[in-house]
């Protein structure tokens, strides 16, 4: 009976399992396998290269810069986005006139596909665009934004936060709304001020959604591609050359697919390591 059940279940599961295996798991394995091979002009076709592609990558100046830029970007963008989403979630769960409307305005950019947002911000950041128009109105000097080595990452962070903060805020709002009313009232009766209530009452009680947001946000920020490809092409001087874009240009512009596969493996490993690390860190809290 159990065996028969298993066969029927397998029939229902088969299409999805085939899709997941062929479209997710096989390419991941193939990247690992291909990263150990290289194209040989002499012998024609591919030959085993051992760790050759990896040592090539590690000694490559552009790759090392790309890792540095990606780590700097990760360390900046994630705390900023998580803190801002949390503060906005607290703000928009207070009872105040228009809170629903204002919240909706913050969420709206979720609907815009990331590539479309990048196109929009490419016009905003033009020397004669909206951003400099606003600065001029405030009496500030015009800024180069995307063409400045020091401003390019902050400019990308602003655009990515415009896209992402509303989305992450939704999870935290859902978490805050699950806090029982009695807990809030008790804190109020104890005479806790607004700051104290946020840090000592709300913050510990939304730790689970907060942990999820931190992990998911970190993963999505490690894979940022469209804004780099559309706005900066990694420049100026490689200062916005995030790993995902470096993989892409290595595979297609430079045309070295095997080294690019090695870089995919490093990127996925980095992603999984950061996710595992954050999970452990957050679990250690409990």
């Amino acid at each position: 009976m159990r065996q028969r059940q298993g066969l029927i279940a397998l029939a229902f599961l088969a299409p999805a399992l085939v899709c997941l295996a062929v479209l997710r798991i096989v390419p991941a394995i193939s990247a690992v396998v291909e990263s150990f091979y290289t194209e040989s002009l002499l012998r024609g076709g591919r030959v085993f290269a051992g760790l050759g592609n990896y040592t090539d990558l590690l000694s490559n100046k552009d790759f090392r810069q790309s890792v540095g830029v990606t780590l700097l970007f990760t360390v900046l963008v994630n705390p900023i986005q998580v803190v801002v989403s949390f503060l906005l979630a607290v703000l928009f769960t207070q009872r105040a006139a228009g809170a629903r409307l204002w919240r909706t305005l913050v969420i709206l950019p979720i609907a815009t596909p990331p590539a479309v947002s990048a196109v929009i911000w490419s016009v905003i950041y033009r020397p004669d665009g909206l951003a400099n128009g606003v600065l001029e109105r405030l009496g500030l000097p015009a800024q180069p934004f995307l063409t400045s080595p020091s401003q390019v990452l902050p400019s990308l962070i602003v655009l990515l936060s415009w896209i992402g903060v509303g989305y992450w805020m939704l999870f935290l709002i859902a978490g805050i709304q699950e806090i029982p009313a009695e807990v809030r009232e008790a804190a109020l009766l104890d005479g806790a001020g607004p700051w104290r209530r946020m840090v000592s009452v709300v913050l510990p009680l939304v730790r689970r959604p907060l942990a999820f947001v931190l992990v998911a946000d970190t993963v999505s920020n490690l894979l940022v591609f469209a804004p780099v490809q559309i706005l900066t092409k990694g420049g100026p001087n490689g200062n916005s050359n995030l790993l995902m874009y470096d993989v892409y240009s290595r595979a297609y512009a430079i045309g070295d697919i095997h080294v690019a596969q090695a870089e995919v493996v490093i990127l996925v490993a980095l992603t999984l390591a950061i996710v595992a690390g954050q999970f452990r860190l957050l679990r250690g809290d409990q």
Partner: protein
Amino acid sequence: MKRVSLSVLGGVVGLLFFLPLLWVVTNSLRPGSETFANLSPLSWQTFVELRPTVTNYASLLDSAIGRATLNSILVSAATVVLGLAICASAAFGLAAFEFRGRGLLFGVVVLSFLVPFDAIAIPLSTMFRDWHLTNTFAGLVLPGIGNGMAIFLLRQFFLGIPAELVEAGRLDGLGWFGVFRWIYLPLSKPALIGAGLMLFLFQWQAYVWPLLIGTDAKHILGPVALSNLQGQNFTDYGLVFAGAVVLTVIPLVVIAGFQRYFVQSVSSTGLK
């Protein structure tokens, strides 16, 4: 007093987020030659157009972006229909039966969404090239239909369906497909809509994959077409902004229509 200041603060934040979109909408209703005319100095006219024109939207219809938007709609719709069929059936297999290896198969599903899709897009695209799936609709749709997250979400919901209902159905002579079709699916509308939204947004927002696999004029998708236009030297920004508005409004209408389910599926992926 406190209420008022909170409201003002919320309003300022909301408007800051809204201004770029408002600017895009306003400029989509203006000739492209005037895009940069109202920026120096900035005034209320930057964000409001008193004599709006729809010429940009009209010329969108027979531009590359018009065609690309139709492609996006077609590809996303196909993804949702096929994806829901495949993911719901898999979730049913995992929720309704007890068998050896069930935990293992569930592990495969979870594993498949731990590896981010964009990261494996490049190795997958070399596979698809070998299989002659470049510049085909099948090539664009396929990666969207097996979605581990959607299976996970549906399985959680299906686990809540009482076993007595299934037994009653079986006694009434329903086959297992009948149980799936006539008991599980009708009871799971919220979860199906949530999973459908997930599949839709995955496909509608995709950029890396359509850039790798479908860039000829017949198969190009909206976001790729729009970013191609942006890169050209003599860009008509009126047209770019009209395209941006259309590509934003379509998912917005879908999300707004199913708002309740969207928030539900968002919060259940975060909390469970």
